[in-house]
């Protein structure tokens, strides 16, 4: 596993807030030459620690006012039903996140919709018709924040 020093952690911290920072800007901020900063970023990318970029949009401003988290339990268990469900659920454009979990539910989904009426449409036409779906719990998201995590 890759070992990080304080400078690596500071770079990760900075890029997690703003991925558009280049080696020049990172170098100036942390007292490194541009090539030295570039080498560090490259190393973090090659180790898989930096796993790409995420564009953060204001969903509300784009007309998607409702985000709902769903917990789904499959009614029938078995290899085939998991595969069928997973294939079908990932193809739904309104579903942003699909996670296979262990606990009270089998899957966690994050779903975006224009409003509650639109969410009802997605739920009835797309989610409740998925193969094998059993119990569903829905929670409407009010706020979300990402934390920097244990970077020291």
């Amino acid at each position: 596993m890759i070992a990080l020093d304080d400078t690596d952690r500071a770079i990760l911290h900075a890029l997690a807030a703003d991925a558009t920072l280049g080696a020049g800007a990172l170098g100036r901020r942390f007292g490194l030459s541009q090539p030295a900063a570039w080498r560090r970023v490259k190393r973090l990318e090659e180790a898989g620690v930096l796993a790409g970029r995420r564009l953060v949009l204001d969903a509300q401003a784009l007309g998607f006012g409702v985000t709902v988290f769903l917990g789904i339990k499959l009614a029938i268990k078995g290899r085939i039903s998991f595969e069928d469900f997973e294939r079908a659920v990932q193809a739904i454009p309104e579903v942003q996140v699909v996670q296979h979990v262990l606990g009270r539910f089998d899957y966690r989904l994050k779903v975006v919709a224009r409003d509650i009426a639109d969410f009802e449409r997605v739920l009835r036409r797309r989610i409740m018709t998925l193969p094998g779906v059993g119990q569903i719990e829905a929670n409407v998201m009010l706020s979300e924040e990402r934390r920097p995590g244990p970077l020291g």
Partner: protein
Amino acid sequence: MQVDDVDRRILRQMLAAPDAARAELAERAGVTAASLWRRIERLREGGVIRGEEAVIDWRALGWAVEVSLRFTLEKAHPRAFDEFLEAARAVPEVIEIQTFLGLTDVRLNVIARDMAHYQEIYRARILTLPHIAEMDALMLISTLKDSEALPL
């Protein structure tokens, strides 16, 4: 802020390929590089684009366990939410916080190096959070889909 079809086209391309160079994005969206810059700048200033964040793969850093903890709070206490959230923000292993309308009030995404470490965090930092009425845990097995994509 007004978002037109060209803006939407640009955002779609950025969502589809967050790592793509600006020149490539311009070509895919069918606009000139100068126009792409101008529009992205405008979308940033208008708050539609909140930012571009680097995605950190915690598993690559040795944080192998991820648990979704869902809480119901003692809502009779007027400052239950504020005090709970404030305390949760102080736990470095908490990487995501969401609040909800529904059965669940708050969800925390917690990471740990292994199960023993998770147990430690759970007892020392999670069970000690204020105003917990009920909680349950979903252990992440795998993430099948994770995108900020909106069906624009």
